[in-house]
């Protein structure tokens, strides 16, 4: 933050700039409150009593405050196995995936690589064309990964989208930095590990965040590749609760009342809070990499 302080003392803010600052902050305060609302609503519902929650409506405060729903949720086995699976998958997937993405993106960022354009196009192609459920399902079965947590990790490990973004960031690193290392006798691999990676902290943090969130939110993989209930991902557990039985039966033209007589509104809300909160906590840790001048600092240091 050195750069900032220097700049601040060098200029006097004009009146225009002061007004802008005030408006800017006000605008963001309002925006943030509006953005916060849905999540707030869900939290409030989860802290309300079930019969109040069934009535729906706008919740600014809990109605009939109670913790009992959270007690129930944490007594259910599903949430724990869901957490275990999702954390397992997300951590391994993010580490492995981000690393593999970087490995793939760096060579593609070099113009001198023969066949680089072809490879780039091959990668891009996978982002555009998708074979659909059954072929992916059959592949996993044939590999022997069916009903295995790694089936939740492997198919999603590298996304072309992330590759392309990373490649673009790698290209913005000046060649001059590599030149000096090359003169000292380093080969491409050493340069990648010792120079490029340390300079790309912001990029890596971004892609890691995207990958982590992708794994965390993924429920489709569970539907496709998992059979045992104790290997369901957290989102699959959640989605199982959220879908409306009546709607499903209605679209089937069925006129029957679902026999369940539970009021799951608060449980659904609590599940959402429990499933979403952990991933929200990650961002502040990632933010420190979005600091200005981190790249230049790395070179000088």
């Amino acid at each position, binding site marked *: 933050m050195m750069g900032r302080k220097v700049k601040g003392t060098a200029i006097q803010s004009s009146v225009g700039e002061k007004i802008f600052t005030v408006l800017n902050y006000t605008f963001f305060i309002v925006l943030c409150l509006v953005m916060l609302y849905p999540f707030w609503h869900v939290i409030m519902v989860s802290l309300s009593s079930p019969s109040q929650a069934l009535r729906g409506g706008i919740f600014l405060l809990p109605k009939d405050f109670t913790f009992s729903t959270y007690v129930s949720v944490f007594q259910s086995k599903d949430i724990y196995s869901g957490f275990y699976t999702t954390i397992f998958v997300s951590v391994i997937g993010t580490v492995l995936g981000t690393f593999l993405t970087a*490995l793939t993106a760096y060579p593609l960022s070099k113009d001198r690589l023969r066949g680089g354009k072809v490879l780039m196009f091959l990668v891009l192609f996978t982002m555009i064309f998708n074979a659909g459920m059954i072929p992916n399902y059959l592949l996993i079965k044939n590999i022997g990964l069916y009903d295995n947590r790694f089936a939740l990790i492997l198919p999603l490990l590298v996304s072309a989208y992330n590759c392309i973004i990373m490649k673009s960031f790698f290209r913005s690193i000046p060649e001059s930095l590599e030149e000096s290392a090359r003169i000292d006798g380093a080969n491409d691999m050493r340069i990648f590990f010792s120079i490029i990676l340390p300079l790309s902290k912001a990029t890596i943090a971004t892609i890691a965040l995207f990958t982590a969130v992708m794994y965390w939110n993924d429920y489709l993989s569970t539907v496709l590749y998992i059979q045992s209930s104790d290997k369901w991902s957290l989102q*699959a557990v959640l989605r199982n609760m959220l879908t409306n039985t009546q709607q*499903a039966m209605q679209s089937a033209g069925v006129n029957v009342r*679902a026999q369940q007589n539970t*009021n799951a509104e608060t449980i659904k809300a609590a599940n959402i809070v429990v499933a979403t909160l952990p991933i929200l906590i990650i961002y502040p840790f990632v933010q420190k990499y979005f600091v200005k001048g981190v790249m230049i600092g790395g070179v000088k240091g």
Partner: protein
Amino acid sequence: MKKSKQIISLVLALMLCISVFAGCDNGGTTSSAASGGTSAADNSSAVDSSTGGDESGDVTPTGEKVDPTAYEETMDVTFALMTGFTQSDSRVEKMLEEKYNINIDLIVLPGWTDGQSKINLLMAGGDMPDVIWWWSMDNEFLQWKDADLLVDVSDYMNTYTNIRDYYNKMDTKTLFYATEDDGSIYRIPGDVAEPSCECLWIRQDWLDNLSLEVPTTIEELEEVMRAFTEDDPDGNGQNDTYGLGGDGYDFRTFWPWVQSYDYAHYDRFTVDADGTVGYGPANEGTKNMLADVAELYSKGYITPNITQDTDRDEEMANGGFGVTYSWCAYNNPDSQTMKSFKDANPEGNWVPIDMVVGANGNPQEDPATSAAWAYFGITTACEDPERLYALYDDMCGLENYIERRYGVEGEDYTIEGGLYNPIIAPESDENNTQNIGLNLFNNLFNRKDEGLIYNTPETTALFAKSGAASRDQAAALVEWRNPASLTAWVESRTDIEDEKNRYMWSVVGGEESVDSWDTYIATLNGLGLEDVLAEAQEIYNTEAGQLEEYMNNKVNQ
């Protein structure tokens, strides 16, 4: 640190490659399901799959009956299911495992949105469960049947007869719809709706406040709706009440007006006294119904959000309206929805009333289909289908069913004064946390006779009354043996129904009027309705004949 990271990553990448190639099957990307599972190798009692019905006219069970509780060898059985208790190794599951000497493995389907996709994947992947459960999937069922993925259980059904007898007791037609043309049965009804499960509800306290009588005709009902909207029935001095409310974006809410006109329906095919098949949404009666509802809506007697997809229970709990057409089950004192409503409206009092008399002078409740809406079947992956059917059928006898569903009397519930009093209710938290397993295999056979002990006697009577009062209507609605056999309908259905929904809801909401009815019909015809009806007529005639023959020959009865 950099070097070791390098090495680790290369090793990981290498491991990745190796693991992938090790298990890789080349070229097997569209491996067929037919390769999976042993075909139904029948043991001792050689069941010959000739179907008893039309050919020999004689349905003697072949071979001897097996006793499912007397097997020495343990059999592994996998069930795919969605609703009901889904945790493994519950007390009920263990009880069943011990009784029949089996190893139960549950495959839980991932919810109502993705469940059907998963069912398809399970059937297509070459690794089918022994028992597969599904709802609605008529097209796929035909494909499974053709691909020999399901076992014909008709002979078993006539040997081990709990399931068969129950369905024949309740409604003989149920098994007709489950039976194929040649008498074989590949799908066993899993859950059949009560003949009618809805009735007309009204706020008695509002009636009392306004000194009104319970309405008995449509006109009286509409007058009551007007009063509920305009005369401040809750006496709070605010103009915040409405006449009719309920499930939004669902024509069942308007049932009193639907049943008011002959052959009016918002969805199904109709058949008149001459045997002519029509399409409900294109019949004259529907036009009249729409006109009525649109008028009521424009006058404001119906909650404005009735055109939006609201949640029935949420609307009920919120209140704000005085008339609704909804579940008979609300009559149970433990109904969560009613409890929510009562919490917010302590003086509120919903009572069920008889259907009001409409233009056709014959009040009818909304009938359900005789056919099941969910089926289950034994797949050809099962080693011993007869043993499986025998034990499942044994599970469905009255006492065994009650034990599987509600538990042990004295331990999980008591019967006091004829009323079911749960100590641990099937949907309760304790059932989960203590892993008891009540309501295991829900929707893989549900009894609605004496086996349904949790309705109060009043509620049971209400169901019965509604059921009885829906039979004329049921006779006027067509039920298909397998909707997938109407190929023209399957092709045009999405487009016809889109237009139908668009027009009907636009009329209700006021954006269109019934004056454009003829244009609407012309559009439907342009989308292929005439061809659909021609085909429907043909198939109806055939199936009507088949039904008569079935009833006379008593196959599977």
